[in-house]
C-alpha cells in the first residue's frame, strides 16, 4: 500500500503534474499537522470551482471582458502555483496569453484544457491521498 502510494506520488512528479512547490508543502507537514497538504489541496479545489464558474459566466457575456478574464485566470494561476499544480498553471498562462491578444477561439480551447488538467489532477491527488492514508 505504501509502495503504491509512493509510486503514484513519483509518477505525479515524473509526468509533470506536480512541481517543487508540492514538495515545499510536504515539508510543512509534521506529526501535529499530518494532513496539511491534503487540506491545502482541498481548499484549492473548493476555491477554484468558484473561479471556473466566474470565467464561465464572463464568457457568456459578449463582447468578452478580456481584462476580467485575465484577472480571474491570474488568481487561478496563483493558487495553482501555490500547490505545485504544474500543468494547470501552464494552461492558465496559455489562456492569459490568448486573452492578451483577444484570441477568442484560443481562449475557448484553452479554457477546456485548463478544466481538463484541473480535473485530472484532482482525480490523481484524491487517489494518492486515499492510498497514503490507508498506508499509515
Amino acid at each position, binding site marked *: 500500500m505504501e*509502495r503504491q502510494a*509512493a*509510486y503514484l506520488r*513519483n509518477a505525479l*512528479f515524473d509526468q509533470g503534474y506536480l512541481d*517543487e*512547490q508540492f*514538495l*515545499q*508543502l510536504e*515539508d*510543512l507537514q*509534521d506529526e*501535529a*499537522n499530518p494532513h*496539511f497538504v491534503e*487540506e*491545502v489541496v482541498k*481548499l*484549492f479545489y473548493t*476555491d477554484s470551482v468558484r473561479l471556473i464558474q466566474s470565467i464561465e459566466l464572463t464568457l457568456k457575456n459578449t463582447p468578452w471582458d478580456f481584462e476580467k478574464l485575465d484577472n480571474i485566470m*491570474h*488568481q487561478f*494561476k*496563483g*493558487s495553482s*502555483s*501555490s*500547490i505545485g499544480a504544474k500543468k494547470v498553471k501552464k494552461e492558465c498562462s496559455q489562456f492569459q496569453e490568448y486573452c492578451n491578444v483577444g484570441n477568442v477561439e484560443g481562449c475557448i480551447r484553452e479554457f477546456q484544457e485548463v478544466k481538463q488538467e484541473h480535473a485530472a489532477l484532482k482525480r490523481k491527488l484524491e487517489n494518492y491521498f486515499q492510498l497514503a492514508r490507508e498506508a499509515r
Partner: protein
Amino acid sequence: MAVEDVGSGCSSSGDQEFHVLAVDDSIIDRKVIERLLKISCCKVTAVESGSRALQYLGIDGERSSLGFDDLKVNLIITDYSMPGMTGYELLKKIKGSTKLRQIPVVIMSSENILARVDRCMEEGAEDFLMKPVQLSDVERLRDFMLRGGEEREVVGHKRKTRDDSCSSSVLSCDRDHPLSPRSVSAMAHCKPLSKRPRLLATD
C-alpha cells in the same frame, strides 16, 4: 480575526514571539503563509484585504489604542495584487502613518516586474518576495526580526534573475550584516527533483 498561537515545536527557551500580520486575498495563500509563519514560531493574523489590515491596525478609525500593545505587530507581509487596495497602496498608507510607519512591510508577488519591485522598495518596503513564498524566505524574515528589525537603511538591493523555473527577489542589506544572499534560497527553487532522496525511495 483571532491571533493564532505559535506552532508546536517552537521552544520557549528565550524564543521571542513575533506577531506577523499577513495580507492576501487568496485563501490558499493565506493558509500556506500562516503555516510557514507558525513553523517559524511566529504568531499570525491573516486577513484578506488591505482595508481589513488597516482596520486591524487601528489606522482607519476611532479605535482606541487600548490594548494596542497586545496587538503589536512586528512585521506585515502582504500580497501585491489584491482587488480594492493593492499591497503597494497598503504599504503607502502604513508608511504614511506616524503610528505604524516603523513596522517593516514585506511585499509578495507572483510577477517579477522590475518597476513594481523598485516602486515598493522606494516606498519603504523591507523586501520583495516572489511567490510561492518558501520556508527559507520566512526564516530569513524571522532572522531579520530577531536582529531588531531596525536596519531600515536600505544600502542597496540585489536582484537575482533566473530562468523561468526559478524565482528572484530583492534583498535589503544592512551595512554591517548583509543578509545571506537570496540566491541561496533562490537556488533552492531550482533544486532538481531528482536530488531529493524521498523520491527515490519506493520500497
